[in-house]
């Protein structure tokens, strides 16, 4: 699934794209791209004139060349689009194959199963999948646990656990069960699975133009119309001045002036953008959502899983006066041996490393009883050899110790307060009536998260953290991660309310979610990314699905969205800036015969009028394939301030667009003269 840009020019893809660019010449399909449609009309006109000249036996060498280059201009544009489509289709094809071969064990009412093709499954069907079988369609696990290899979809080789209940019950058709047996409730009808959607997105027939693409196209149509009038009036004005300009030269000038570069590459930019998302393992339900992600200025993130690793970890033991750190560690470890929560395990880990007994198996003495954690006592521990070792929240331990006639030492009280103030969670360990010390549990930030959030800030996106923690803890984590804002002690509906509030102030909000209770918020957000492992409700409410279920992916999505828009803007600027040089190539060629003083405009010193027109039209044509890699890969995007980003792009594509064609046309002119084409 991972698209490697180095295989951009894979030969089989290239061959297919070349083949596909021919049928796209059909005016009935080409009219969807008005700029290229206009070029085709010009090409047809020029070709007819050339044919007339050939039949009449006139001088046709020049007109033939103009006609050929006009046709190539269209073919190059078609090729760009076909190549972009082909790359996406190649990936989709593999998936489609995997899916159509799958056999499903459909559960019948009487409890028996029948084997049917995956393509026959409908919403509401129940299927069984066990070791080694392919999950036939998208659905939710209603029963069982399985280790699933999702590499066919995500490219990620590490298998993932999927289980019934909770927020990790979603399975995708085409993935393989490695171990375990699950009963899956199919949630989609044929043709609506993720694979189908993925295939649909990369096939342009289903690709809707986004509003932004439409607006740009209107501008390009306007420019095209303007230049048609410019060229028609030019013919009249030249006639008034006693000059006759041949139709092929007029058409050449027109095509040079029309924004063919952007017009030709526009479809490819959009398709390639979706491909790039796909290569990040994100499926977008619409191009509009991708572009909107470039506009997002508020990102809502769950603390757990996005900003911090899933769980709190023990990072420090603070012994009470008269207790050694080792004693505290040993007792903390003992109290946590039976604690299978991540917090408990992290306490064991920390103790082991502190006591340098890492790797050794620690077992409690025979006859010990584990005291499990309950919501009422809010502590856990172990009774062994008459000792009662307990670990829990500071207030419950205090109560417990007091009830036995002990008391909380002052230094531990201070330690607990300071841990809480720093955003950590304090736990207290006691042995009978003795309080041994405190454990600092801390949220551990995910790798790179701080850097990513500061990148968000550079591009003007506010990050907002949502957490169930109390405000003090939340503030501490937010400060550590560099988060702009947070919502602490959030109730489930807090996300929806936060999004609505930001939207009312005019912000565009992105959010990532996986749980069913995220669905309303996802539906409300402007850009909503659901984890593929999440519930069906979440996936349906979202407009993008992250196959890797990696919440930090949102940042990549935002950058790809921006990249698509930047590429569009940069190539438009380049295309329009190119026109200046083409005037300087063609106008002296047309006018200087009758008015030699206008040769001052021939600043490129092009050899002859014919070579000048030819060079301009050749440059105009070949710049399209030369820019295909840029269109497919996207303009390099680096988070920086908007003004420096704009300055940079203006210099490269605006100023560059002014200068490059002067050089290019001059070089082509020299080549044309060398080959005696003029």
């Amino acid at each position, binding site marked *: 699934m991972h698209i490697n840009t180095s295989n951009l020019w894979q030969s089989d893809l290239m061959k297919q794209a070349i083949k596909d660019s021919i049928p796209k010449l059909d005016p009935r399909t080409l009219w969807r791209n008005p700029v290229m449609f206009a070029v085709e009309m010009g090409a047809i006109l020029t070709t007819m004139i050339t044919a007339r000249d050939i039949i009449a036996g006139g001088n046709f060498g020049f007109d033939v060349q103009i006609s050929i280059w006009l046709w190539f201009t269209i073919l190059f544009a078609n090729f760009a689009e076909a190549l972009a489509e082909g790359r996406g289709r190649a990936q989709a094809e593999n998936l489609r194959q995997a899916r159509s071969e799958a056999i499903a064990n459909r559960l019948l009412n009487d409890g028996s199963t029948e084997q049917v093709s995956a393509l026959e499954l409908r919403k509401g069907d129940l299927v069984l999948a066990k070791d080694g079988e392919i999950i036939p369609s998208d659905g939710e696990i209603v029963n069982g646990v399985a280790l699933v290899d999702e590499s066919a979809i995500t490219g990620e080789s590490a298998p993932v656990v999927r289980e019934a209940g909770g927020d990790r019950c979603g399975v995708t058709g085409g993935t393989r069960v490695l171990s375990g047996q699950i009963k899956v409730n199919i949630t989609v009808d044929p043709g609506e699975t993720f694979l189908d959607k993925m295939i649909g997105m990369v096939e342009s027939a289903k690709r809707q133009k986004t*509003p932004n693409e439409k607006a740009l196209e209107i501008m390009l149509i306007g420019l095209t119309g303007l230049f048609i009038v410019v060229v028609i009036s030019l013919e009249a004005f030249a006639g*008034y001045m006693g000059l006759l300009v041949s139709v092929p030269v007029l058409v050449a000038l027109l095509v040079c002036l029309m924004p063919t570069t952007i017009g030709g590459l526009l479809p490819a930019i959009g398709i390639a953008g979706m491909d790039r998302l796909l290569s990040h393992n994100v499926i977008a339900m619409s191009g509009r959502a991708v572009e909107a992600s470039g506009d997002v200025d508020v990102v809502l993130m769950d603390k757990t899983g996005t900003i911090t690793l899933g769980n709190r970890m023990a990072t420090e033991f603070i012994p009470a006066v008269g207790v050694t750190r080792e004693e505290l560690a040993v007792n903390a470890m003992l109290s946590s041996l039976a604690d299978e929560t991540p917090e408990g395990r992290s306490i064991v880990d920390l103790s082991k490393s502190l006591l340098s007994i890492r790797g050794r198996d620690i077992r409690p003495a025979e006859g010990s009883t584990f005291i499990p954690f309950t919501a009422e006592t809010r502590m856990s521990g172990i009774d062994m050899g008459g000792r009662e070792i307990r670990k829990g929240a500071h207030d419950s331990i205090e109560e417990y110790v007091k009830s036995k006639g002990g008391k909380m030492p002052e230094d531990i009280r201070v330690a607990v307060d300071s841990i809480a103030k720093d955003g950590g969670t304090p736990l207290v360990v006691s042995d009978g009536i003795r309080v041994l010390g405190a454990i600092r549990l801390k949220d551990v930030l995910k790798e790179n998260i701080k850097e990513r959030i500061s990148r968000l800030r550079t591009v003007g996106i506010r990050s907002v953290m949502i957490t169930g923690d109390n405000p003090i803890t939340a503030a501490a984590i937010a400060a550590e991660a560099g988060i702009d804002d947070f919502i602490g002690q959030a109730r489930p509906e807090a996300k929806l309310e936060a999004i609505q509030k930001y939207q009312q102030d005019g912000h565009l909000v992105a959010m990532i979610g996986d749980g069913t209770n995220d669905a309303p918020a996802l539906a409300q957000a402007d850009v909503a990314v659901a984890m593929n492992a999440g519930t069906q409700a979440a996936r349906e409410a979202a407009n993008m699905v992250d196959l890797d279920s990696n919440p930090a992916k949102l940042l990549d999505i935002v950058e790809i969205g921006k990249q698509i828009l930047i590429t569009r803007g*940069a190539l438009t600027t380049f295309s*329009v800036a190119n026109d200046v040089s083409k005037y300087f190539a063609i106008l002296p060629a047309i006018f200087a015969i009758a008015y030699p*003083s206008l040769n001052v405009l021939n600043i490129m010193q092009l050899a002859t009028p014919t070579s000048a027109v030819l060079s301009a039209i050749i440059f105009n044509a070949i710049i399209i394939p030369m820019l295909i890699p840029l269109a497919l890969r996207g303009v390099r995007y680096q988070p920086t301030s908007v003004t420096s980003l*704009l300055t940079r792009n203006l210099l490269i594509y605006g100023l560059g667009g002014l200068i490059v064609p002067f050089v290019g046309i001059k070089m082509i002119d020299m080549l044309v003269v060398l080959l005696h084409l003029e």
Partner: protein
Amino acid sequence: MSPEFVYVALLLGVLLVLAVPTGRYIAKVFSGERTPLTPLLRPIEKRFYSLLGIDENKEMSWKTYASALIAFNILSVIAVFLLQEAQGWLPLNPQGFGPVRWDTAVNTAISFVTNTNWQAYSGEQTMSYLTQMLGLTVQNFLSGAVGIAAAIAVIRGFIRKNTATIGNFWVDLTRSVLYLLLPLAIIWALVFASQGVVQTLGPYVAAQTPDSGEQLIAVGPTASQDAIKFLGTNGGGFFNVNSAHPFENPTPLTDSLQVLGMLLIAASLPFALGAMLKNRGQGRAIFASMMVLYLAGLGVALWSETNGNPLLDHLGVAGGINLEGKETRFGIVPTVLFAESTTVTSDGGVDGMHDSFLPLTGLVLLFNMAIGEVIFGGVGVGLIGMIFYAIMTMFIAGLMIGRTPELFGKKLEPSEMIMAVIGLLAPSVTLLLLATLAVVLPAGLFSLNNAGPHGLSEIIYAFASACGNNGSAFAGLNANTIFYNMTTALGMLVGRFATILPALAIAGSLAQKKIVPFSAATLPVAHPLFVVMLVGTVIIVGALTFFPVFVLGPILEHMLLGAGRTF
């Protein structure tokens, strides 16, 4: 520095000092806030509404607003037309002028209603005092007010959110006249009259010439028409030679006040925009863009004219200074300043012969008009035109920073783009097509007095003037023919309504959108980079559209002039 340049700097300095507070005043007037004139004018305004049955609190959708505007303009055209045809039977006609020829009357009616003031006729030989005052001067006020109203409606599109309405046309129109144009016109007219601009309803004066001949000296109610001629960027002169006539423009003071008058309101509107957006920096950026373009054109024109005419230079005449067609009472620099100002603002009043400028100066004047009169431009519509360019600029700029584009906090989507493209390109396209007709049809070529590139410039100038709603003439072209009266009238209509109507549509669409708050990810309008891009867009769009015809017209003429050929 020569005193002439001090004069230019001083005049523009005064303009700046006046434009900022005027802009804020305009913002207050149209936001319904209290101004120093409110106690005096508010009762009159209310009285006027009750008289005409206007409910000033009734808001209009853009379609209603546009319908009211069109209906008002159609009635105006009919009224001005009928007035010209009936002037022979009406009072205040001491010279006993008969009905105006139908095509001239149609052209004139459209011309004054569209704020163009293209004059195919010669005022003192055609129009009665009544026609001049009730028809033309009244339209000078109303057409300017219509433009200002439209601009205010467009600004409302940006500052309002989640609403379908953009104001009340009748209220905006009334306030433009009452609070803005009338007070300023009274001041200007009094100063003009004090400087010797004639103001009388009496008949033309007969004078004895030194060689015992009899000369009839045309006079009339000039000062009152002259003030609004500039303040409303109308430009229609009382006399045929416009402000080159000593009765219309007697002294250097009136000359400078005329320049100041035509720039004042148009230059204030960007500041009004800033005040209404509650973001003065954005208004300043629009103003700065206009000023940069203005100074660039002025620089080229001054450079061209002060360099002189190489042919005269060879003859050893006047150091080569090209004084032909200049207002010698004022000199070269003030005449060029006047010409630059009258072409950028769509005023069209002249104090010299534009036909007689050197080719490159002519090129600058043509460019000013052909890009759609957006460098200050006509009152109201100039700002509108610049907003079209700003929409294009921000669309591309927005893409290049990776955001779906926005301007002043409003997202730019297909519906805005269609309207901006129409508003920007329809006048240019019409200009080129009408000029094409003129050089192809015998009826068009028949009127030409000059051949070659200069003749082409004259034709282009005529249609640029019409489509830009400027009204100034290059002369050298007999425009009072059925062909030119009809084609320029069409150009004027397109230039006016293909600007105002799309702008109102944009306002209607924008008013319904929410306002995107400014953040670090927003491209700042109040930034030099925006000014550079906006100026660049205006120049590039203009150059790409008109480069071929400029090459065949003024540029070729310039080349041939260097080689010793004239036309």
